[in-house]
């Protein structure tokens, strides 16, 4: 081999490596771009309003994000499986009022169950979880066995669960909870309990999606339902589990809600489903199915939380906040589509 040709080959090799590096950087940027967006937001907001970075405010953001953040975890499973669940806001209200009715102190002015003494906090929690799981599983069952689109099934459930919440309460809010229930909305030392609950749910969902065969099935159903069926995956059972988990997450969120607010109204959490969908979407979970991550849902929820908190701190009108949020959701999806189109 002449030295010239060797030089040429070296050059080719080098440029190939450089190309490789470039595509790798690009892939990393695409994958973790949303974290950069979050950092960017934090930097901009804290420059304008240094108060943002105080530990009280940071915990504030996390606490505020925890309710729709928990809902977004369930939503991640749903959207990754190529579905949607718009009933979780109403399911939160229904499981919330059930929990509230069992968590009242016996000295409350208007007791839902008049002869009820103070219940251990585990009881309203279990009741709420069961209600959420049931409503979600009904969603999944409807989708699996009737074949109606997820949007329609959960649209029906959205109205039904809201109606049930109204009937259960007679339209009135339920308040005055036991200290144990209120503890869920408070702090341990400096650490807010809602954030703790959020962290636990993140861990559970992370294991569920990444390390169980159920998680693999979620990706397979969303990515290619035919391949899943041919491989012997029980699609129907998995759909029930997926929507059941979304309902369960709504119920967990309802308990945090009850503890934080100290009262649950049957009209509570209207529109929360859309915030959860937005957080999931911003986090890169694809509505075309098969792509979705837990960390994405968390970062997506934080982007929304930081944005809301930051804009309020900077004194931006609430109306304008809505417009900014809408733009961010659309941009997130456009970027996501581009990313996936290029792969083909």
């Amino acid at each position: 081999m002449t030295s010239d040709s060797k030089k040429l080959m070296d050059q080719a090799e080098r440029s190939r490596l450089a190309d490789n590096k470039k595509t790798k950087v690009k892939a990393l940027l695409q994958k973790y771009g949303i974290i950069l967006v979050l950092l960017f937001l934090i930097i901009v907001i804290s420059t304008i309003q240094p108060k943002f970075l105080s530990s009280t405010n940071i915990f504030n953001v996390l606490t505020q994000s925890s309710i729709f953040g928990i809902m977004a975890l369930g939503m991640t499973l749903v959207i990754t499986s190529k579905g949607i669940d718009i009933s979780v806001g109403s399911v939160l209200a229904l499981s919330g009022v059930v929990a509230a009715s069992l968590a009242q102190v016996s000295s409350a002015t208007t007791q839902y169950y008049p002869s009820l003494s103070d219940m251990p906090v585990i009881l309203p929690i279990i009741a709420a979880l069961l209600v959420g799981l049931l409503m979600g599983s009904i969603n999944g069952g409807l989708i699996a066995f009737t074949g109606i689109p997820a949007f329609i099934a959960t649209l029906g459930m959205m109205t039904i669960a809201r109606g049930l919440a109204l009937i259960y309460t007679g339209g009135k809010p339920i308040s005055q909870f036991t200290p144990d229930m209120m503890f869920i909305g408070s702090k341990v030392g400096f650490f807010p309990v809602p954030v703790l609950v959020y962290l636990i749910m993140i861990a559970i969902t992370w294991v569920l999606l990444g390390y169980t065969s159920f998680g693999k099935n979620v990706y397979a159903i969303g990515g290619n339902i035919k391949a899943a069926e041919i491989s012997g995956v029980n699609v129907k059972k998995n759909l029930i589990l997926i929507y059941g988990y979304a309902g369960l997450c709504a119920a967990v969120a309802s308990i945090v809600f009850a503890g934080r607010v100290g009262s649950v109204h049957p009209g509570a959490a209207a529109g929360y489903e859309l915030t959860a969908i937005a957080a999931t979407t911003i986090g890169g979970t694809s509505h075309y199915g098969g792509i979705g991550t837990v960390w994405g849902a968390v970062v997506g929820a934080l982007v929304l939380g930081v944005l809301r908190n930051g804009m309020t701190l900077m004194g931006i009108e609430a109306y304008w906040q809505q417009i900014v949020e809408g733009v961010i959701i659309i941009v997130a999806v456009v970027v996501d589509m581009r990313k996936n189109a290029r792969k083909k």
Partner: protein
Amino acid sequence: MERDKEILVMKDIVKTFPGVKALKGVDLNVKYGEIHALMGENGAGKSTLMKCLIGIHPPTSGQIYFEGNLIENYSTSDALKMGIAMIHQELSPVEHRSIMENIWLGREPKTKLGLVDHKKMYEMTKDVLKLIDFNEDPKTLVASLTVANMQMIEIAKALSYNAKLIIMDEPTSALTNKEIEQLFSIMRRLRENGKSIIYISHKLDEIYEICDRITVYRDGQYIGDGDTKDINVNELIKMMVGREVNEMFPKVTCDIGDVKLEVKNLCYGRKFKDVSFDVKKGEILGIAGLVGAGRTEVIETIFGIREKSSGQIYVDGNEVRIKTPADAKQNKMALLTEDRRSTGIFPMLTVFQNVIIANIQKYIKKTGLLNHKKAIEDTNEFVKAISIKTPSIYQKVENLSGGNQQKVLVARWLLTNPEILFLDEPTRGIDVGAKAEIHRLITNLAGQGKSIIMVSSELPEVMGMSDRIVIMHEGKVTGILDNTKDLTQEEIMRYATGQAATA
């Protein structure tokens, strides 16, 4: 291994779908450790038979014995567990997941805690991939693989089920020659290990290269089987084609004029290369070839649905630039697509709406509103002229028969007053009577001086209708033949399978 024993015996399999008898009592015997070819034209029933075998469509009647045991009422996952795996023509991996997650989907190895054991899955995948000498990291995303490599993953998946019988449905259609060689060497190795393979392909040279035995089907019937070495190509083609050209093609010779459309060295990516032909006024040009030869792609490219990678198109001797179907329409072209349902009709709209949809411009008044009266008149005229059987022009198209739906499409395009008509499988899925009517309509249009380019997989149709026939094989024109009396189906098949090549 008992080489001469049968691993699979399918006896007298009948499969009916509503209104169609797809399989009329066919047999198939496959031995241990052999590669067995299924041959037959499109629609002969090969795919249906395989779907019966793997549990997608249970047969209406008949028996299936696998390894000597009668098997019935089983699902695709049961079939997999028994050791029958199919590699589908359209591969269906979960694209955004890794190789190992695809292979072990639905049966991931678990740790003691019940969680997925990724480490073990990784090792197991390495082991399976080693069986086919495939050196890709099990964590690679499937979406980043080539089609050939996705195929390897499917084969690896079949092996991971410990499959004893692997069905391959046209596995080479998207592969390069080198990749095909690689596939064949793996197939030979599998055969040595006593695995049986059912191989479906239209490529005769491949069949002779790799297969031990052949079973031929035609029109849902079993025609015969035998060792590959005992059947020569001509016999095989005769067995596949078999039927005679009947008298349902009312071809009348009409005056053929000047060249209307000419295509020179047209290319579209890897789909087809250097396609050149011309068609004259009043001429019917048939395009024959097997599925995947690139026929549909050629006319879609001329029509601007796909953008050509190179080549020229001339209309009336002038070069034209066609980038979109709208450009094609401007050049007086019309296209009847192959798949009526998905790309042609609007099933829930009325006959009237379906007919005028490509011509709405023509009926817009100065006020910007639609001139309904004129549009209705024209629609009624065409409905009468080509005798569409419908109670009224306000009937929904989904309520018409297949033949009449096709006529509605013809009416739509005739309304644009085209001079060049592309017809892609114009009589697919239409019953015999309606077929003859469509054929008469086509002949009449040619008689009016229109140039017609017709793609059809039915040789009798091509031979009965065309003045000249372009034959394609794997993206190339292998022959342009005058349709004379002594042209035989066997001869066309030789061009279509790449056995004879004079371009």
